[in-house]
């Protein structure tokens, strides 16, 4: 089936300018043609007139946990259904067409990925990481998605189990975090050298990428030297870290939302609403606010120094995640274009899918969103969502509900 998205202002993620009044032809789930002006509409094609709306690649969030809400007594079946709801709503309500998971219990992410790929459920494309691997007395132990491993073989075995269960990458926790008990601080590093080396060795040997949670210079450098594909958080870094990122061509996923979303820092209605709903405890707020200035500074330095960066929020639910994180990027000094690139093209590259996804180009898979107003002028305009297309299929149409459209 052929669909033509006509009269669109295309932000294709490749060229610097907006392609105005263009039409995008989708054939069998792929982008067949991006044409300036109205092109010939093939007979039998479905034409959707976007009336000057802005068409972008679908959004990505490459640091997602899927939990929402967190119910301690939930059965695994309930968790599965809740995660499915969360994933589905992120796609439909916010246009998050692809995610990379950063720690999900019981391989619910693998199950959702398979249900999505078989067309049985309408959920984002998923790059699944399975359990969050940490040590006893490690990080994220209260979340339900952490698996504790001790000793080199403990890590090797857990990583092999992940592979067998069908994950796409391995999430490895090297250091503490902002959220956690007193013995879990982001300047603490958890793994013994031999544990780290064993974990990275088996991943390298089996061809799996490591998504490394590293929050201090020692951990970031250890991860990069051992071959991490991406480093998550990096709240504290140093110049050597940035040099290593560039040298190893590794990715940095800053997850600004973790330190920036507190009541005192919230500066928009969306941030304020999210913070209110999140209900953080006083000690976590204090830890986040203490960490925020340095986090911001290293984000800015990394951005200015040409480190490869992609957008991952670590926020929940998914319908709020990518938008909030992109807005924080802009608040911290990124241009809207940089934030959008981080959440589309660069995110797809990070996931190894840049040849098929992440931009609006002929031959790519048609994962697209249309928004009413120009997000290059104001990143908040990504919230004026009109249409979500995944694999060439309209999975959400908000045009009737959107005011002024």
């Amino acid at each position, binding site marked *: 089936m052929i669909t033509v998205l006509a009269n669109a202002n295309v932000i294709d993620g490749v060229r610097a300018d907006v392609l105005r009044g263009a039409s995008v032809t989708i054939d069998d789930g792929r982008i067949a043609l991006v044409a300036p002006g109205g092109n010939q509409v093939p007979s039998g094609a479905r034409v959707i007139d976007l009336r000057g709306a802005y068409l972008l690649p679908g959004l990505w969030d490459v640091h997602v946990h899927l939990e929402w809400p967190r119910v301690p007594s939930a059965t695994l079946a309930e968790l599965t*259904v809740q995660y499915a709801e969360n994933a589905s709503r992120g796609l439909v309500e916010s246009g998050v067409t692809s995610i990379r998971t950063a720690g999900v219990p019981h*391989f619910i992410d693998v199950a959702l990925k398979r*249900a999505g790929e078989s067309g049985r459920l309408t959920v984002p494309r998923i790059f699944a990481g399975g359990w969050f691997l940490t040590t006893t007395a490690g990080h994220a132990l209260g979340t339900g998605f952490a698996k504790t491993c001790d000793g080199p073989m403990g890590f090797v075995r857990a990583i092999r189990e992940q592979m067998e269960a069908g994950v796409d990458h391995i999430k490895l926790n090297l250091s503490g975090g902002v959220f956690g008990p007193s013995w879990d601080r982001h300047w603490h590093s958890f793994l013994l050298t031999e544990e780290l080396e064993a974990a990275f060795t088996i991943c390298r040997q089996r061809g799996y990428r490591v998504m490394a949670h590293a929050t201090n210079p020692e951990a970031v450098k250890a991860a990069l030297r051992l071959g991490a594909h991406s480093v998550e958080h990096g709240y504290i870094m140093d110049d050597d870290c940035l040099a290593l990122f560039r040298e190893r061509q590794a990715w940095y996923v800053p997850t600004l939302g973790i330190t920036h979303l507190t009541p005192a820092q919230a500066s928009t209605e969306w941030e304020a609403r999210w913070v209110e709903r999140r209900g953080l405890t006083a000690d976590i707020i204090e830890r986040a606010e203490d960490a925020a200035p340095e986090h911001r500074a290293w984000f800015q330095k990394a951005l200015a120094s040409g480190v490869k960066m992609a957008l991952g929020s670590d926020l929940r639910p998914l319908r709020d995640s990518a938008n909030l994180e992109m807005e924080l990027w802009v608040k911290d000094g990124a241009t809207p274009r940089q934030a959008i690139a981080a959440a589309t093209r660069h995110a797809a590259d990070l996931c190894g899918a840049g040849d098929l996804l992440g931009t609006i180009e002929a031959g790519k898979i048609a994962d697209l969103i249309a928004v009413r107003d120009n997000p290059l002028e104001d990143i908040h305009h990504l919230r004026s969502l009109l249409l979500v297309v995944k694999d060439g299929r309209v999975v959400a149409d908000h045009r009737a509900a959107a005011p002024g459209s």
Partner: protein
Amino acid sequence: MSLLFTGVHLVDATRPEPRRDAWVLVDDAVIREVGHGAPPRAERALDLGGAWLLPGLWDVHTHLRSTTWTGRDPVRTLPETVLEQGRNAMDALEAGVTSLRVVGVGGWADVAWRESFAAGRFVGPRLFCCGDALRTTAGHDPFGGARQMVAVDGADALVRAVREQILHGVDQIKLITTGGIMGAGHDVMSAVMFLREELTAAIRIARQRGLPVAVHATAAEAVKWAVEAGAHSIEHGYLLDEEAAQLMSRRGVYYVPTLALSHLTRDQARTPDERAYCAEHVLPDGFRARANRFAPDHDASFHLAREAGVKIASGSDQGPPREAALLEIELLARSGLGAHGAIVAATRTAAEVCRAADRLGTVEAGKLADLVAVTANPLEDIANLRKLALVVKNGAVVVDRRRAPSP
């Protein structure tokens, strides 16, 4: 919001004659008024142009499976199975099945989906849930020893298992007291697998807590034990005798014959839909032979129950429910209930089985608006239930096939 359906022939499941040229007024989730002649005003009106309007359909014996009993299911994680079961339930709604009684799935997946559907987070049918189907060690096992079902031994353990189901929010309790057609070896239908005190204890605690008990019982002896112990419904009952049928009738116990289990083989398939189903969903030879062998006994039992005046409800025990629910209704019609009787079994009586007849199961003022509209008269040909035009659940149109979908 008020929603008016006009231009309908109504099969309301309370009387055998259709009410022609009727209208149905729905207000939010509830049927406000049913009538004919000049319709009242409404905020939204849908002229169904002579369609046949019925209560939404039910299947009161499903395991939310994707296919028939294959002997061995693919190895899956619980989350994968949960998602598949949810999808199968959602697909059933698309086919006009607005309510399901789930009589045994693992991990309380049915309860999880029930809540999601009830809250409208996913669009699916109403689920009435049993949680785990409880059986004994060396009990019924359609999975070839894969231990996919909970086995409980001893009266105390059964009481505890029933309480655990209650803790997880089930609506009914399901006990499997004999073997079945989809079994082999020790899995015979003639022997009762529960000890009498096990059966009595399980049903006693369930009833004390106000939960009906659905009992998988095939042999007459097992049926009698179950009824005497206080069963709410008998599932399968392939080998009833006169005494068992009379006892069920006298005690007002429901019978869910699951005709699809013995009749849906490629050797017995009669309609194009049955043949298509049997071609796509292939039974292993052993199961197929048992189904063929027991089908005549099953028919005889079904007739005994009917003669005795037992209340019969439609439950397929086959998968996927979107296909199986309709196949069972058609089998019930053909096996002696007739079209209207089969519709009642799949609507009004099914709602009674789920103890929801006060709010569901018929098209009457005051009931919740779960409705299907089909374009041809299902009383003339029950297969016309497949000519679906509209599905309404809880007052909301969830499927509208009146026009060909736009490309």
